[in-house]
């Protein structure tokens, strides 16, 4: 139990446990009542009529949804690969010995992290008149690439100093030190944070809906606004959300699993990082160097 691991209260005795059980029952009853009320509302507003659910039995509609899902995954794949690449480039820039390169990359990273992703996507879509998919991918890449750049940089900076010193003492050049010694350890330790950031990218592909990219939500909207099926809005939400949320949860769970493995892995011993939540660094703040 989590009881012993908190500063808040002692391990409860028999009387308190009985009281807690009572609270638990009361809370459970309340939740069940709320869920029941929701179910009643759903029935009351006729959300389970055959007319509203029949569209999902048609092959064409299933294909429409699948195509939407495919487009979502396609945008995610492009955005993930490109942001990893951009993140690597910007991180190298921020770690560079040349001051102008360092300043330029710092400026880019700080700017793109401070801008709402949607503003960038709209700018690329409206002002530069780019097609929806490239606009979405470009916006996601700029934002997530900048965040990943910070993740990479923090990781490399938090590899134990002795590793770097030993590598230099062996006569390796700066590039060799980074690529052979620092980066492999840093990437391994940062893997959970990197994957969590990819979850953000996956979630943000749904912004494509707002620039008429034909992704999953867009397909749902098409079905939901169909008068022939009595505007099946709630059924569409009930079909789409579990799939969307399930995909993100799966990726989040994968990040946690990798994190658990890395903590036990001796190869990450020399990296003293406490991975921050993705994108939670205040702009303009310098992370403490470990």
């Amino acid at each position, binding site marked *: 139990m989590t009881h012993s691991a908190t500063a808040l209260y002692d391990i409860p005795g028999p009387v308190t446990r009985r009281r807690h059980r009572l609270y638990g029952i009361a809370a459970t009853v309340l939740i069940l009542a709320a869920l029941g009320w929701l179910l009643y509302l759903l029935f009351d507003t006729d959300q389970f009529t055959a007319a509203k659910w029949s569209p999902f039995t048609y092959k064409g509609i299933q294909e429409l949804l699948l195509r939407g899902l495919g487009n979502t995954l396609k945008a995610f794949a492009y955005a993930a690969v490109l942001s990893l690449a951009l993140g690597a480039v910007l991180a190298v820039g921020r770690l560079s010995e040349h001051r102008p390169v360092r300043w330029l990359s710092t400026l880019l990273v700080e700017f793109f992290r401070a801008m709402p992703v949607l503003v960038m996507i709209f700018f690329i879509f409206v002002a530069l008149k780019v097609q929806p998919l490239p606009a979405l991918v470009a916006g996601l890449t700029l934002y997530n690439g900048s965040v990943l750049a910070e993740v990479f940089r923090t990781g490399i900076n938090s590899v134990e100093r002795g590793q770097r010193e030993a590598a230099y003492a062996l006569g390796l050049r700066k590039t060799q030190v980074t690529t052979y010694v620092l980066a492999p350890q840093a990437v391994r330790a940062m893997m959970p944070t990197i994957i969590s950031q990819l979850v953000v990218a996956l979630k943000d592909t749904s912004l494509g809906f707002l620039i008429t990219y034909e992704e999953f939500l867009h397909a749902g909207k098409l079905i939901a606004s169909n008068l022939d099926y009595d505007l099946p809005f709630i059924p569409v939400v009930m079909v789409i959300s579990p799939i969307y949320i399930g995909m993100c949860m799966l990726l989040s769970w994968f990040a946690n699993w990798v994190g658990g493995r890395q903590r036990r892995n001796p190869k990450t011993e020399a990296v003293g990082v406490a991975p921050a939540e993705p994108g939670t660094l*205040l702009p303009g703040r310098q992370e403490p160097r470990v």
Partner: protein
Amino acid sequence: MYVLTDNFSLYGKGFLGTLELTVYSSILALLLGFVMASFRVAPVGSLRVIGTVWVAVLRNTPLTLLFFAVLLGLPRFGLVLPFKVFAVLALGCYTSAFICEALRSGINTVPTGQGEAARSLGLSFGQTLGNVVLPQAFRSVIPPVGSTLIALAKNSAIAGAFSVTELLGTYKPLNELGYSIIWSFVWIAVGYLIITLSISALFNLMEKRWGVAR
């Protein structure tokens, strides 16, 4: 270049709209996040389950999907409110999951010994919480809550795309009036930068005053 001076009232309205959304949603998110965090550390099993499910679901929900469901879905239940209220609801609930996690990890940074010492001095549960645990947790919670609220301010742009009066939404009328689209976006960007950098400055100030000494 003259986009800003010519349309100052339009920009002003959008800026205030974003600010309003951010402030109201922040209040909702902080309150709800606090409640959910206390659920997650409660000794009652079913409350912990609610908190955990709340966080797990909302953290993995795309905000656009949430806006889609709340703004277009809730009216199907006969709940008709202004779009702005719906937007605050969606943004607040979404952000509350992140606030909850920040608060919970803040509470977890307080060593168990602190609570044990407080209790052995005879302090009651309320005193332990109010005088010993929360003041210490508060210090370590400032930076993550600050960054979460910055993310909230940025996410409020999505409300603009769902036709709530908001800074990003100003590009549309300007575009129709024939102003340079690039410059109108520059000023939109400046508006967002003002908001996010102010939150950042506020929280940096708070951290300097109350933060954990490193």
